[in-house]
């Protein structure tokens, strides 16, 4: 920057930072060796010395906050959160992975198993199968609770490989049958003095889950096509699996997402005009084709940034010496590209809404604890 006398410096517009400070505050600069300016300057009085107010006014947040949905399907979605801080975006990600409840198989009652797979390994595998049901329709079950239709889902697996068939058969997850009336295995504890009463089973369903309107036309299923075990001729497996509600915090089988992640929006800026040979070199260097060549006229080719969003920040374009002054790689600190992959229990947009609700509930419980 050329030297200007102190008295001739232009006046700063009120409440706006000078451009170099604005860059430090809103962008992570990704240099060749390491990123810089990575912390978020959240303190309200950080720029008090220059007279700039850094506090977040809720109405300003409401004005600037945007959500853009890029991709939405039954299983995954990609959307942009613009104008939010990293701590809150991270809170949503953490809640999505570990604190949104789901149903998963917890207890397995094995009546007969002559497979080569041990019982506990079988139970572990069954636990990891996603159960495609809305967990909000069920309650949690604690140690002292009786398993009933409000907190348990019962599945049955009854598979025998005939000795005559001579070939191995695979047991898939879609062989698990839903039992809307509850467990079929009778408790062997007491000899009932009243022979006409129904024998007590491992669960006490007072009514069939089938009668609930949500399940009458959609039977509860699990994700099909998952191999549970393989049986050789003569082997059989007969078991009952009880699914309960839980959180991913306790065990990963209760996590409703395959995974959820976010990245900050990359920004690629050409600091100088890159022409002709250099432009071609730049376009060839980038493995994801961020740059493009445009014809400026008079046979001069210039490089432009066509797809900055696709940039993976591999830094190939600034690796060689001399290129760092020509290309600036940055990340926008408050623009997050969120991707959520659901396992099937709830659609991804419902999952995100639930995660935000859970953060609200946490705040509320802190408020009530303090009052």
């Amino acid at each position: 920057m050329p030297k200007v006398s102190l008295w001739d410096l232009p006046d700063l517009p009120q409440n706006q930072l000078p451009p170099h400070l604005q860059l430090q505050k809103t962008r992570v600069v990704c240099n060749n060796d390491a990123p810089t300016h990575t912390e978020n300057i959240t303190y309200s009085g950080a720029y008090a010395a220059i007279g700039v107010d850094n506090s977040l006014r809720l109405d300003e947040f409401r004005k600037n906050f945007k959500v853009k949905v890029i991709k939405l399907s039954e299983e995954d979605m990609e959307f942009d959160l613009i104008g939010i801080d990293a701590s809150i975006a991270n809170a949503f990600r953490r809640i999505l992975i570990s604190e949104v409840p789901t149903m998963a198989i917890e207890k397995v009652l094995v009546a007969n198993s002559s497979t080569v797979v041990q019982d506990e390994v079988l139970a572990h595998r069954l636990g990891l199968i996603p159960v495609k049901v809305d967990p909000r329709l069920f309650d949690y079950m604690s140690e002292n609770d009786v398993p009933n239709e409000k907190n348990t889902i019962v599945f049955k697996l009854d598979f025998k490989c005939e000795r005559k068939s001579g070939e191995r058969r695979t047991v898939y997850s879609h062989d698990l049958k839903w039992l809307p009336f509850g467990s079929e295995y009778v408790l062997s504890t007491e000899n009932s003095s009243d022979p006409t009463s129904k024998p007590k089973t491992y669960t006490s369903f007072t009514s069939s889950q089938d009668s609930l309107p949500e399940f009458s036309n959609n039977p509860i299923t699990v994700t099909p096509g998952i191999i549970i075990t393989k049986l050789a001729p003569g082997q059989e497996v007969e078991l009952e699996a009880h699914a309960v509600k839980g959180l991913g915090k306790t065990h990963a089988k209760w996590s409703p997402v395959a995974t959820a992640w976010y990245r900050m929006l990359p920004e690629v800026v050409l600091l100088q005009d890159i022409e002709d040979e250099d432009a071609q070199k730049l376009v060839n260097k980038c493995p994801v084709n961020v740059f493009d060549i445009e014809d400026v006229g008079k046979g001069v080719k210039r490089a432009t940034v066509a797809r900055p969003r696709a940039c993976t920040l591999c830094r190939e374009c600034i690796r060689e010496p001399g290129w760092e002054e020509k290309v600036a790689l940055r990340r926008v600190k408050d623009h997050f590209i969120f991707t959520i992959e659901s396992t099937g229990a709830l659609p991804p947009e419902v999952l995100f809404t639930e995660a935000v609700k859970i953060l609200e509930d946490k705040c509320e419980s802190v408020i009530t604890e303090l009052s």
Partner: protein
Amino acid sequence: MEHGSYQDQSASTFSLADEDHTLANSLRFALNQDPRVAVCGYSIPHPSEALVNIRVQTTGDPAKEVLKDSCQDLMMICQHVRSTFDQAVADFKNIRGSESQ
């Protein structure tokens, strides 16, 4: 649980049980944005124990009130995020529905 002094209400440490970085970092952000706060931070004494200590020092107001207000702010942020997100998803589905027709 609040650890502070009866004489000086403007500085105290709040111990939250069953919490971790999820809530603590977001609360720290909301607290920092409040102009009444001089210093705020959080620490987790041991990772195996679900306990978070949030320290709030204000410019005069009682720390408990400032923390409650920041929780309120965080709740308003969440509500706004939720409504904007629902709106965006509804718009996207509408656009996709009208395109396929």
